[in-house]
């Protein structure tokens, strides 16, 4: 490795001018979508349609079409919910925590990750609502004084989820939009289309790039970052409470909150890398989203992957150490019982494969990282499956043991959520700047005042 540590590494490759940066980022918005784009869109829309169909049939005949049954009442819907909420966490981490930690490399990936947060939360929100079986009653989740005197169960973590996730969605959306304002102004000033001009003008809120504009913007952004940071922790903490406040062995363990948060960031980064690999290639953004960026993200994947591995190990150790036979049974059953296959998929994908990222060569190799991050996505889905299903399927009463098998409808809805997610991603890359123009300009070569020679 021949990096000169005495100098700051450039974040953008190839000394682009500010106009070139603008050009690269705005190009997908200025050009008409080509055939490939429509092919991609039709694929994702088909997936979405599969999900919608499965869902409609489920509503018509009832959720009995799903595999959920005693003893596994919590299956795919919760697994998918936790999976999608987790995916969202990378966005908030990058936009809020890395911002507060002054990690300038975040600029190139923050916008995209934030957008993915919003899309992932939309996907996630579907599942608890459909899991109730009567989605049209979802309004009652909001506690309000009503004639029936019906109140939600405030002691249930499922209700806390409603508050946590909706707060998370709101703050993420505001954060995302605030970051977009200066970019809307840039687009407004450069577009030649009248319709677009109206759209951009409205959304740029009269941004004039003045000193005062920027001062307010910076202040608002820092404050929002401060608000969003606890959300990174709180949302998945509350999701982990769904399980951990119970007295179910395998669910009730104190490490769950930080373990879930680490897992969420892990899976979120994996998803961001998965999508960015394609985006930077297709839209010629390799100079903005460089290998260095991917390298850094892969390091975070390695670190969070090991945190998750630590939690797996710690849970196992404490199950033995506790001396509680039920705890011990659940964990042995997890690793060697009927769902051993799921457990070992999880361990291999989440703990073993990311170890490749110890090596710089693999962190910077697109094929290798693509394989690893997809494995991580798979592994993290299985993690939620393992936690939910293995703990439930053999409870205290051996006479009620069972084996959960998902049905086609379960898979259909899962596929549909992927369809929804990628449809939104595709629409996003063609309608909004997927990299922050103003932030990238701020880290471009020569944009920063230096302190060299002055004290």
């Amino acid at each position, binding site marked *: 490795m021949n990096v000169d540590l005495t100098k700051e590494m450039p974040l953008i490759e190839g000394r682009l001018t500010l106009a070139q940066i603008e050009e690269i980022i705005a190009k997908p918005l200025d050009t008409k979508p080509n055939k490939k784009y429509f092919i991609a869109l039709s694929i994702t829309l088909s997936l979405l349609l599969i999900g919608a169909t499965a869902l409609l049939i489920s509503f018509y005949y009832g959720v009995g079409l799903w595999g959920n049954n005693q003893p596994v009442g919590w299956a795919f819907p919760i697994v998918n919910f936790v999976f999608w909420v987790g995916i969202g966490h990378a966005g908030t981490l990058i936009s809020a925590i890395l911002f507060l930690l002054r990690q300038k490399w975040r600029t190139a990936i923050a916008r995209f990750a934030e957008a993915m947060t919003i899309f992932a939360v939309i996907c996630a929100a579907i599942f608890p609502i459909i899991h109730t079986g009567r989605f049209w009653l979802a309004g009652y989740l909001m506690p309000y004084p009503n004639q029936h005197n019906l109140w939600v169960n405030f002691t249930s973590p499922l209700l806390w989820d409603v508050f946590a996730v909706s707060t998370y969605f709101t703050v993420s959306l505001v954060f995302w939009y605030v970051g977009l304002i200066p970019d809307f102004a840039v687009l407004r000033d450069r577009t030649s289309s009248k319709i677009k001009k109206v759209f951009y003008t409205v959304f740029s809120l009269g941004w004039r790039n003045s000193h005062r504009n920027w001062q307010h913007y910076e202040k608002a952004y820092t404050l929002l970052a401060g608000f969003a940071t606890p959300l990174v922790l709180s949302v998945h903490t509350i999701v982990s409470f769904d399980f951990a406040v119970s007295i179910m062995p395998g669910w009730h363990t104190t490490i769950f909150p930080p373990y879930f948060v680490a897992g969420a960031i892990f899976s979120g980064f994996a998803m961001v890398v998965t999508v960015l690999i394609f985006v930077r290639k297709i839209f010629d953004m390799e100079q903005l989203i460089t290998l260095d960026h991917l390298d850094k993200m892969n390091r975070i994947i390695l670190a969070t992957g090991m945190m998750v591995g630590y939690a797996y190990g710690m849970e196992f150790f404490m199950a033995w150490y506790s001396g509680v036979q039920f705890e011990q049974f659940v964990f042995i059953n997890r690793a060697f019982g009927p769902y051993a296959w799921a457990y070992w998929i999880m361990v291999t994908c989440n703990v073993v494969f990311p170890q490749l990222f110890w090596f710089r060569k693999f962190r910077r190799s697109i094929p290798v990282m693509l394989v690893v991050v997809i494995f991580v996505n798979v592994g993290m889905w299985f993690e939620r499956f393992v936690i939910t299903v293995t703990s439930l399927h053999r409870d205290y009463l051996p006479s009620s043991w069972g084996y959960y098998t998902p049905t086609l409808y379960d898979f259909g809805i899962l596929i549909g959520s992927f369809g929804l997610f990628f449809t939104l991603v595709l629409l996003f890359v063609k309608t909004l700047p997927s990299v922050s123009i103003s932030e990238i300009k701020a880290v471009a070569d020569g944009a920063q005042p230096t*302190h060299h020679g002055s004290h």
Partner: protein
Amino acid sequence: MENKSMEFVQKPLPESVLKTGIILLIAGVVIGVIGLLLDFDRMIFSYLIAFVFVTTVSLGALFMVSLEYITNAIWSVPIRRIMEFLASALPIIMVLSVPILLSMHSLFHWTHTEAVANDPFLSGKEPYLNTTFFIIRVIVVFAVWSLYYFMVTGNSRKQDLTKDQKLSHRNLVFSAAFIPLFAITISIFAVDFLMSLEPHWFSTIFGIYVFSGTVLAGLASVTIIIVMMMEKGYAHPALRNDHLFSLGALLFGFVNFWAYIAFSQYMLIWYANLPEETFWFLARWEGYWVVISLLLIIVHFIVPYIVLLPQPAKMDPKRLKFISIWILVAHLLDIYWLAMPQMHSDKSGFYAIFEIGFPIAAVGLMIVVFAMNYKKFNIIPVGDPKLQRGINFRI
């Protein structure tokens, strides 16, 4: 391009610093030993608390060193030596574990053979909780920390002379390898020295809980030292309050992290209400312990949170110094709260005054260690390639 800031000449510390350290150390040990003679069972707990306290200060500083390398941080380069000096105590602390190993019978219920034999839970834990394995673990854990310390500081000192960038890269590799080992070893340390005091109790988050306190202890100690050095003119003249900002921000972050972890642990155990877990918290809710439990929330979280919340506070030397000392005291209280309810002595009252001895000795030890290191080594890593950028660092 010769830069003025490279001409920094290290001022020798006044003798009074070392003297203060030695006096505190001796006074603390004397008070502690008198206490031990009066009430051994109680004071050996006090010794354990001071031992854990000083370990966490030193280990927290060591963790900060490894964090700087793996994150390629710039701001902390000019103050990294302070962390290294604090971490240099680890091999000495390893020796200080001997009194604990000699009096395990008074500290750890699981060393009582007859009790273990009659208790299926304890006999089930015997493969882990037995004296031999405990001693092996102590040795291994401290060996790992000391080894990393010697490797990383050895390279850093070599770099002072050679300015070889390869050494930075080598330290990066060591640090990356150290982090997972650190996670495992600190968890072992937490379980062995604190959790196993109540051998029936278990909590998977406990290692992380101790980790959060450890980082806070390291950060707070480093902050106190750098602020004092800047005040008295011993630090590099180009260092500004900007360099303190990250320390303040990290202190704030880890105050919140500690509260988050502590809350998670309490909340889940309280909510599930399983007797095999709740008894540990109930013991901390009995008698006057309820006061200390509630005090801990205020002292360890609410006060530092309020003090550190405003942005300017994070780089205000006066406020940082105050809150760092506060956090160290809070951290000591935290360890006290973790360990002391497990004490088996039924004497109380008057003897408690002697419990101040060993913590004072711990502070004295750290001052002595720092002063000795200061005499021997450069306070600025003069050969570090990132040093100039670190000195020029501004928010």
